């Protein structure tokens, strides 16, 4: 579980070019969108594509997206629950 969260943090930093951050700077339970890192709606879409490409999990509505991207932990949970085994 923590491995997936760590992996996601690495991918988030890479995808969003948050190059001044390290994975440990991101709290798994902290608010991801609209939080301290300036992640906004376009970044969320960038992450949607990262998740679809990397894990085969589709997130296709804003309503689902808001829940899924609430935090790194929520995102990891959604991926685990929906990933094709």
């Amino acid at each position, binding site marked *: 579980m923590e491995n997936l969260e760590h992996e996601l943090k690495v991918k988030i930093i890479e995808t969003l070019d948050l190059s*001044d951050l390290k994975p440990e700077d991101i709290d798994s339970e902290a608010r991801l969108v609209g939080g301290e890192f300036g992640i906004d*709606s376009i970044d969320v*879409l960038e992450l949607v*594509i990262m998740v679809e490409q990397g894990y085969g999990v589709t997130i296709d509505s*804003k309503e689902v997206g808001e829940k899924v991207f609430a935090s790194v932990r929520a995102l990891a949970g959604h991926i685990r629950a929906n990933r094709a085994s």
Partner: protein
Amino acid sequence: MPVRVFVVGMGAVTPAGCGVPALLETLQAGRRRLQPLTLFEANSKGAMPVGEVPGDWCGTVCRGPVSCDGEGEDLPGAPGGGGSIPRTHAMALAAAREALGGGEAPDAVVLGGTTGGMGLSEVLLRAGKEDPGLFRLHGTGTVADYVAQRVGCTGPAITVSTACSSGAVALKLAMEMIRSGRARRVLAGGADCLCRLTYFGFSMLQLIDPEGTRPLDRNRNGMTVAEGAGMLLLEGGLSDCGSPMAEGSSPVGGRGQAGSGGEPFAASDVPACALAELLGAGLSCDAHHPSAPHPEGAGALAAMSSALADAGLAAAQVDYINLHGTGTRDNDAAEARAIAALFGPGGPPLSSTKGAVGHSLAAAGAVEAVVSVLALRHGFLPPNVGLAERDPLFEVDPVRRARAAPVARVLSNSFGFGGNNASVVLGACGEHVVGPGCDKGGARATAAGSVDACGPLRVVASSCITGAGHADETLAALEAGRSVAGVLPEEVVTRELPARSLRRMKRLPRLTLALADAAIKAGGRPVSGVYLGTGWGPLSETWEFLDKLFGSNLEFSSPTDFVGSVHNAVAGQVAIWHKATGPNITATSGDVSFEQALLAAQLTMPCDGSASCLLAADEAHARLSPLFDPSATAGLADGGAGLVVTGGGKGPGIGLTRLARASDPASCAADLVEAAGGPERIATRFGAVFAGIPAARREQGKAILDRFLANSGFSGAVVDYRPILGEFASVCAVACAWAVNEVSNPSSRLASGKGIALLGLGESVSLLEVLP
């Protein structure tokens, strides 16, 4: 200025078919012309609904009044842009011919465009084609150039690229050209074809409704991307309340027309064939977010209010609103809030016609202006097709079925990425309307009046970037007689900018934000408008988006890169950084992009002493620059310049005195000497001539320059600046910043206490004056 502007011809190529009658029939019958994509392959998500122009229009182009055989060109617009004439160009020409109706050529063409030849270029790029000749119609500005050439227009062909408001912004510029006496007849509109860049781009943004757009519906779920072209032929007429023309206006049109003899044209009476009157138009920028509208619709409200003020109308006088109404959750909500704020409870009937014909991006503003004229002419309210259950945010129930109603005044909205907003007001002919010039003895309302009445723009501060560095390094190198051409490392470009804010930006926005930041800091005052010229737009974002898209077999690409690939994304960022909520116009037309941005500023800057930021920049891209820019053969170079300008006040003055399509060298040279006021004025006012001759037009440009110097007997310094500053489209801006610096310096050997004339000697010729 009491010149009124009339619509005297219209053309439309839309998913309803080729021609205005097809559009009218679709609207009156309430048809929905949306269907799953067939023009090119979709991806594994399936073909989503789009608005494709049906396949029979090509014949209309080729069998129109002018044949398109004879130039060895393939049939235009094959599906997916397979022919050698890109689909957008062909659609634009078909609509232009319909609007002109075989009549005389216009003095100028002003078009909105976002993708230009991309429908063809993306096919060529995917196939790995590397012959630059295949990309000769890639540039967004080539659509207007192509149309101007084919309809015989020798005046300027101007292109604005403000995303989905482009068509309406083009109408605003065309209207101001006529009002200011620069032209009498202007063909204005917009065109965009469906292409992979936009279809998959909006798809990656999750903005496409898989069921087809349902504007204003409580359950709406996105837009439907469409294609098309809309054209309006505008003509100036005499106001019934004043003298025909302002004096001292400086025409930029072609030879032998308005003002070329130094005298303003005599405006005719209301043209007999007038279909409607273009009463006013207003522009604004959200300065809020690259792709999302301001949640309360603040920018939309400002654009509508400005358009009504320009028309001299109160909100209560509007009979119908043609909404932007794309069908996305956020856009429709923001527009509803803006309308509630402006019109209060109740308000006029309204509808979005995008449920019928989709959203044709840069064409939409022009197509919807055509729809507005149809509503005026035929006395009906066009329906909001696709609506089941109204979103309660809209207090007025949208028009559900076409119905007859007296319509005398229509407000039409167009809003775009970058927070670019435009609203236009059209009125029925014969309605007695008090225009902006008609109150108090012809004084224009300052809220809407252009600065032309205040004289040339004054430069408060400037910045530039070249291969040598920022302004200080560049000017020092020039003073020492060294070339500054090259590509400045990115970390030097952005040395003054906060790193975190740049994470989503590639080279062009970085260059532009650095230029704007330096100029605005030096100017020491806030700016309201932002005007940007860029020949090729954000090449890195465009390349990356297509590369990822094709690399994933159309499955994935970056939404960030799509939003950033739009030409006006950069000016939108400048507006966000500097809270600039005034007009925000990106002009793109190859080597005269800066000149066109300057013209846009001269035409639309408010005459209230406020400052605007005038910018031009291009990025060198190792793969795309050599394919697109025929002058980028002598090694890569890029950069640009930024100026803070005001209407009136102190400081060096800049103004565009001439812009026309190049003809033979003798005529061009004679025209430029005349535009500069003749040999005597040239000797008196100018210490130096800066000549910009693009490498691809070296021979022709040199011939024009030699004749210009011979005809004028000019004996001052002549600087052939492109080999020194670099071969890139917007380099004229750097030359302008250099000239501003020279004329501000009393000991300048180049200016010798006088001004500097900048000549652009490429496919278009231009004269830009920098005066102390």
